[in-house]
Each structure stands twice: as structure tokens, then as C-alpha cells.
């Protein structure tokens, strides 16, 4: 029940990011990770008119497939994600839930016509992943400029903040992770995933 499942969504160009991501999750949340392939049907999330992928749909599939020993799932995608009201999102998470997803699509420098920078992209992914997982532990956006939970609407915003939580957010994360552990495996699985699966036709908090 203590694992964070790291799940590649769709075909990925490389896997150099897996170890640093696992390391960052362990360091920040004190949680072990498992890297697994889930059976995700990306075509169901595809919006032909927008030529983008509905992150809510991807989240639903990730949560539904989370094994009993997983407390959280983090999907990592290459495709461009959206929610209906916005033109794009870097990632999505359930507030106080099990699921989160982040996309590399707009984290690549190449997307902005700039020379590739693998190191920078990795740093952005770590920030985005920690940010989304933070939401799954019940935290909302923070107004501290350096806190990883500060809302980012441009990739430059991501570059401005650090990969760390501010002290206040870190305190909450520790408490919530501990509470989550105490809650016990069976119950946590039931609560988190039960909700998500039940509200399949009506999207959960997208």
C-alpha cells in the first residue's frame, strides 16, 4: 500500500527520467516507487478536434488500474494534455485522491523552438511530478514563489520555482503521508479507487 506507481502513458522517447523521478519521490514523500506499464487506452482520451488528450480520461484509467499495494499512481505521458475549459495543462491530479498525471509534451525546450536541454526537461518533470503528487495528498496551490506547489501557467513559471515544498507545505505533506499510511492499505484503496471508479461516467475532480 506504500508504493507510488510510476506509469508511462503511451510510447515514450526514453527512460532516463525514471530513476531521478523515483529518487525525488522517495526524498520528498518518503515513499517507495514501482515502475510499471498499465494497460492504458490512449485513443479513448484523444479529442480529434483539439488534437489533444483529455487528461481526466487518462487519470480515470490510471486509477482504475492501480494495484492494491499502490497508494498513488503517477502517469508520465509524452502527449499534449488538456481539460475542456483550458487550452492545455502540464499535468493533472485528484485532490486528496490516488491519481496524477504529468506530460513531457510542453516541458521540452523544442516545443518552444529552443535547443533541446535534457537536463532542464528532467528538472521540469520532477517539479511537475512532485507538484501533482502534492495535490493527491490534499495540498492546494501555494503562494510562496519558490514552493513547488506554486501554480504554473507557463513553462517559465516552472523554471522559477524549486523542486522543494516550502516549510509550511512540507509540514502538511509529512502529516498527510503519515495519516495516509495509518489509514491502512485496504481502506485507502477502497476510498481512493472506489470513488474514482464509481464516478467513471461523471468525471471525478478532473
Amino acid at each position, binding site marked *: 500500500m506504500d508504493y507510488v506507481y510510476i506509469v508511462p502513458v503511451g510510447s515514450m522517447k526514453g527512460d532516463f527520467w525514471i530513476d531521478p523521478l523515483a529518487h525525488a519521490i522517495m526524498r520528498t514523500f518518503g515513499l517507495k516507487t514501482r515502475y510499471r506499464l498499465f494497460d492504458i487506452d490512449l485513443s479513448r482520451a484523444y479529442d480529434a478536434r*483539439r488534437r489533444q488528450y483529455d487528461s481526466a480520461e487518462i487519470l480515470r484509467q490510471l486509477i482504475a488500474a492501480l494495484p492494491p499495494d499502490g497508494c498513488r499512481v503517477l502517469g508520465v505521458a509524452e502527449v499534449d494534455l488538456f481539460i*475542456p*475549459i483550458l*487550452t492545455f495543462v502540464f499535468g493533472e491530479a485528484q485532490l486528496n485522491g490516488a491519481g496524477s498525471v504529468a506530460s513531457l509534451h510542453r516541458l521540452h525546450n523544442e516545443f518552444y523552438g529552443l535547443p533541446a536541454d535534457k537536463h532542464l526537461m528532467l528538472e521540469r518533470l520532477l517539479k511537475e511530478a512532485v507538484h501533482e503528487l502534492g495535490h493527491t495528498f490534499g495540498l*492546494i496551490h501555494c503562494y510562496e514563489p519558490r514552493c513547488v506547489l506554486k*501554480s504554473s*501557467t507557463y513553462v517559465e513559471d516552472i523554471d522559477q520555482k524549486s523542486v522543494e515544498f516550502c516549510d509550511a507545505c512540507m509540514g502538511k505533506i509529512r502529516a498527510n503521508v503519515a495519516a495516509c499510511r495509518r489509514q491502512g492499505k485496504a481502506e485507502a484503496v477502497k476510498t481512493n479507487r472506489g470513488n474514482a471508479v464509481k464516478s467513471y461516467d461523471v*468525471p471525478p*475532480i*478532473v
Partner: protein
Amino acid sequence: MKPEDTAILIVDDEVSVRESLRKWFQLDGYRVDTAEDAVEALKKLQEQSWDIIFLDIKMPGMDGLELQRRIKQIDKDVVTIMITAFASVDTSIQALKEGAFDYIVKPIDPDDMSHLIRNAIDHRRLLSENLRLRRQIEEISSPDKIIGESQALKQVMQRVSAVAETDSTVMIRGESGTGKELVARAIHSSSNRRYFPIVTINCGAYAEGLLESELFGHEKGAFTGALYQRRGRLEMADKGTVFLDEIGNIGEKMQMDLLRVIETRQFTRLGGDKMINVDFRIICATNKDLEKAVREGSFREDLYYRLNVFSIVLPPLRDRASDIPLIAQHFMLKFAQSMNKNVTEFSPNALEMLTKYEWPGNVRELRNVVERAMVTAKGRRIEADELSFPFSSSSSDFFGDDSLEDVEKKHIRNILDRTNGNVAQAAQILKISRLTLYNKIEKFQLKKKES
């Protein structure tokens, strides 16, 4: 304004739009709720108040435009933002004309959305802040009401209402601090001139030359330092009321000038030759014995008759002691608000002390005593020992560390002063024999006073 203080309602028939917006705002910490149609939205509007409402323009049943009209009828300050697809931008413009704060075209750039919501919150905050400040200022700075139910005050108020509608000049007499300006304002605000200004001039506060320029204004270069043309107070009071406070303190030349203005309703600015016509009513006030001043020749008789058309005499506070608790209570609540203190009552002893005191400074002194007590008050109630009376003879004479002998000496000296040294009268007041008094005068060496 913290995000959790902002309530956002999202009205859209499309569940994915509704929920994605809800999530977006929830993550920023706002209080968010959704409604799938106008009926549900209106129901939620009755249940609680909302700061910002997102409205889909095209909805089955009542559309966003119609819903916005109804929302604005319920709360005109609520910030509405329309949600639209490209096809209905025209309708969005119509919505803007009808009071929408902004509109968003689906899908919207996340950054634009952040700016939009920040601006909307700022707008809403300014609206409610403005409203709150206006109310606060009105409550704090609104002129004091005339308070009291005593017969003496009722008579004053009857005279006020009798003269208010006329355009007659009014002379208000009364001791300092009895509220002469309040009465002047009451007359003005019940008169036909109430929508025009009341201009107060404290005649005692200016040197002769200054009062002249204050009243009549001056042209540029009229005197050294007159760098600009300046309108006088009389001009500012056009169609309104001029309240001349402490009229007994003006000099001879000013009396003459004033008389001319009252008679002709015309004057020129200092250093100017253009005649200025003004229409004003005069209310004046004094605590001096003007009749005596007329007899002594220091106040012009003709001006006296011009001013003293209708006279209102304000009773001193000690003559309407039954009003003291009401007035004290009024000041207490007023200061409680401006000082942000939770003081709600006077103890019975404190009230008795207030009622028995002589109040040489009248209501102004009462206000001062209450304010001082409010500053030092510790509990919800003002106790007798928290009141202090700076001019109280009793407090200075009898509440010190004086010995009985000192007190006796002071009292005998006071009585002798009052009787101008007449021992027989003093002995009568003190209810002792003349011999005893002579002995005490000897003992306390008060002979000098006696002479």
C-alpha cells in the same frame, strides 16, 4: 482577501466544463460550487451569496444572458463572467453591455484564466471594500445626533422645526459645548436648502484681516501672498446656509461689512471690483451676552437686530440631567466602534456620578469624559472609578491626601470667599456660631482673606 474567502459559482450544462473549472479553482483554494442550469443556479443564489459567477451563454432552458439579468436583480455587485464558444461572441458583447465583468472563449489559456480570475477578485474586493468603507465612514463621521428626551430639549426641537422651513436668520444662544453647531445643522438639514452646503465659519478663530478674506475670498495679488484668486466661504455657501459661530467675537469693521452683505446679499472679493451675488441663509451662534455688548457699544445695534430675528436658547446640560445617560450611552457606542472596543454599558454608580456632575463644559465635556473612560476601560462596563472629571471642584478638594484639618481650612476659606469675607453670613452657611468661626479664622490664619 484570502482565496477561501472568495465564493465562485460555475453554471454550465456541460459536465466536463463545469467540473474542470471547479477543479481548477479548487486547487487555488477558492470555495467553488457548480450548477447545471439556471434554475439550480438561482436556487444556490438564494441559499448564499457569491462573489464571482461563471455563466455559460448557451444553456437549455433559461440562457446565460437572461440568467445574468436575474442574478443582477438579486445582487448587482456580483461579478459575472460569461463562458462562450467562438460562435456566440456577439452574445458575449451583449452580456458585457448588460454588466458582465468579462467573457471567456472556450478553451482559454491557463495564464489568461489566472489573470481573469485575479482581476475579477480585485474588482469584487474593491466593490465590497468601497461599500464597507462608505458605511463605516458614515457611521463614524456622521454628525452627532441631537439626543435627549427632556422637556427643555423638546422645546428647543420644536423651535428648530418651527424656523427650519422659513428663511429667517436664526441666533442660537447657549453655553459653550451645548451643541449650537448641531442645532444649526439640524435647522439646515430640515430646510429647503438641505441639498446645498452648510458652511461653518468660526469667527473667533481668525484675525480680522484673515476673516475678511476667509468670508469674501480674494483676487490674485490682493495682498502679499495672494498668489491665486480664491473663493470665499460666502460664495461656497451659495443657495445653502452660512453658520457664523462665535459671532460676538468679530471686530467693528467686520461687523459693518457683514451688515452690508446681509442687507444686499452682494459683496466683492478682496482686491476685486466685481459684485458677487449670493443667496444664503444665516444662522449664528454665541455664548456671549450680546445685549450687554450692544449697550457697551462693542457690538453694532443694527447688526444685532439683523441677526437676532429668531432666537433659540440651548439649555446647559445640568438643566437637562435626565438626558445625560442617553447622551453618555450614545458616545460610548460611537467610541466603542471607532476604538474597536467591546464596551457596552455604564455601571449604575458611574451613571449616577455622570448625572450628578455639574458639567461646566456641557455635552463637549461629557463626550471628553466618556472618551477618556473608553480609552482606559478594561471590561465591557465602565465603572465609576474609571471616570475622571478634570474640572470637578469636588475631586480636587476632597479626594486628595488632605487631612481633615486641611479640608476644613479650605472649606472655610471658600465660604468666606463666597460671602466676600462676611463672617456673619459665613457662620450661617457653615452652621456654626460666629465665635467659633472667629476662632477657626484665627487658628487657620485666614484673616487676610477676611479683609
